């Protein structure tokens, strides 16, 4: 940032938005679904300033939350200085049922979105709320419009008439802001650091990190791994770090042998000490502004070579770039940190990126010792995990989340 740059004026923004919300709502009631993240909390605080008790804040427990999250969020937001009245709406079973057996990223997101708004509109109708305040920010709708991913909270931009379908009009007070600007507004509003600096948690929550089909034991593994990754990376993880769970299932892909050769030549490690797999699960990515529901490749080198070479982060970064460039189908490259029982049903991928506005992201060079400690603990606490990987892919060609 240079001295010439005019600072974003949070004071002026808050003043104009509070006025605007008050004017649009008049004496009507409004509802907001809080996630505990900075976007929805900032919107709720703005709206609460504008219309006070006419705002109903709910927290929908979708079941795709981290361990203890609903209670934690409620406790935090109910406290001063925000003192927002929060009601928790339990809907876990509904979401699980709606998503069902689908393993496709877009289908899962769509089912989630539909269930989310149905739950929301039922509560809104019961409580006579005709407005929905929503924390959409710039990257959400830019990506949706471009057809890259479906964000659960963007309707109008994709042509869904919320008034007809769900009975409320949507108000999006921060739709033109980027994440760093939202944080500036949050700070200005006195929102606790724990929220204003909290790393973004996707709207559909852990759903998009539970790659492929949802299974209860898979989700449980994801929740445990998430807790472990967050514990270790709280101080060294970049702006966004998390775990994702995948199926331990590979495909007999025609490109496998060529890939293996490429990796072995590039890393100068003998072919028999290198193993490349194409996973059965797919992940979203973006190549040249085109959405790519691409292939995931895992790269492993023998334990002995891992010891000899240590953490080849720069080399692996370049390898990733080469593989995704030369193989159009590939949008993600995972690198094996440690193996568990080969027959176990799941894999876990650790991801950590640094980003300003979530439009582009680079991977973080987490020290190898920390990664191995994470892997060891995951394998110990989750015996149904076969491999723990580190995700080597920046955005683009990957997206930050998996689905």
């Amino acid at each position: 940032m240079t001295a010439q740059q005019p600072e974003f004026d949070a004071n002026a923004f808050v003043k104009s938005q509070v006025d605007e919300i008050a004017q649009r709502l008049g004496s009507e009631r409004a509802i907001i679904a809080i996630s505990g993240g900075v976007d929805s909390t900032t919107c709720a605080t703005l709206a609460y300033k504008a219309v006070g008790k006419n705002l109903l804040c709910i927290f929908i427990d979708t079941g795709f939350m981290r361990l203890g999250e609903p209670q934690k969020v409620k406790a935090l937001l109910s406290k001063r200085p925000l003192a927002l009245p929060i009601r928790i709406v339990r809907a876990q079973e509904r979401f699980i049922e709606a998503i069902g057996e689908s393993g496709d990223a877009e289908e899962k997101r769509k089912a989630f979105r539909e269930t989310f708004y149905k739950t929301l509109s039922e509560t809104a109708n019961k409580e006579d709320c005709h407005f929905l305040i929503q924390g959409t920010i710039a990257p959400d709708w830019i990506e949706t419009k471009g057809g890259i991913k479906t964000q659960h909270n963007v309707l109008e931009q994709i042509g869904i008439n919320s008034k007809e379908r769900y009975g409320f009009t949507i108000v999006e007070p921060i739709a033109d802001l980027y994440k760093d600007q939202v944080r500036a507004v949050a700070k200005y509003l006195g929102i606790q650091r724990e929220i204003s600096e909290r790393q973004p948690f996707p709207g559909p929550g852990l759903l998009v990190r539970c790659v492929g089909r949802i299974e209860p034991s898979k989700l449980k593994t994801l929740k445990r791994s998430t807790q472990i990754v967050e514990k270790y990376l709280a101080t060294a993880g970049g702006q966004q770090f998390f775990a994702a769970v995948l199926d331990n299932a590979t495909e007999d892909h025609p490109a496998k042998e060529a890939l293996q050769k490429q990796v072995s030549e590039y890393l100068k490690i003998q072919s028999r000490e290198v193993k490349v797999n194409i996973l059965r699960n797919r992940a979203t990515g973006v190549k040249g502004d085109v959405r790519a529901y691409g292939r995931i490749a895992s790269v492993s080198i023998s334990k002995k070579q891992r010891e000899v070479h240590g953490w080849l982060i720069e080399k692996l970064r370049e390898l990733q770039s080469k593989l995704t460039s030369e193989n159009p189908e590939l949008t993600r490259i995972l690198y094996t940190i440690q193996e568990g029982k080969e027959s176990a049903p799941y894999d876990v991928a650790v991801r950590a990126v640094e980003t300003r506005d979530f439009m582009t992201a680079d991977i973080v060079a987490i020290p190898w010792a920390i990664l191995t400690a994470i892997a060891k603990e995951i394998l110990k606490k989750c015996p149904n995990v076969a491999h723990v990987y580190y995700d080597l892919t920046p955005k683009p060609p990957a997206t930050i989340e998996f689905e």
Partner: protein
Amino acid sequence: MVPVVNVKGQYNHLIVRMLTELGAESSLVPLSVSIGELEEIGFSGLVAGGGPQSVYEKNSRRELSNLERLLKEISKPLLCICVSHQLLAEANGGKTGPAKEPEYGQITVHVDEEDEILQGTGPSFRAWASHNDEVVRMPESFQKLAHSQSCKVEAIRSRNRPIYGIQFHPEVWHTTKGRTIFRNFLEIVGRNAASGR
């Protein structure tokens, strides 16, 4: 006023943000914008962003036909990014095609000619790119300004007019010299306006 033509890429908004942060007035305008409309909002330069199109592909070319006309007819400073850079090359007799090694994410840009638009960015810098296609033959009236390991043509300029094409994305945060490039462009726009053209 330096409007940004929205070519429907993900980062078009970030160009507006960048220009605004550098103190210029800017907003997104649609692909269908006419010269008359641009004059009405008092434009002194124009930026065209990236998008998902392939300019050698018929339908894409049709979608971009209005922008192509603008690139040929406007005499004010122009900065064309990613797909618009490819379109600029084709519009002036160059050729584009699928890249042998497409670039996604981090690249190193080597500056061959600092010139005006890349002033202060040499000899090389880290940039972020996302493209499946590239310029495979330079238009004759243009000069090459930069390359990367995988892509021969990362930046070009017209020999006759203040018109520039850039293959990578100077508007994203991970491109280290992006701000410098936009500042250079705004200076070019300022000088051009002062000379009364």
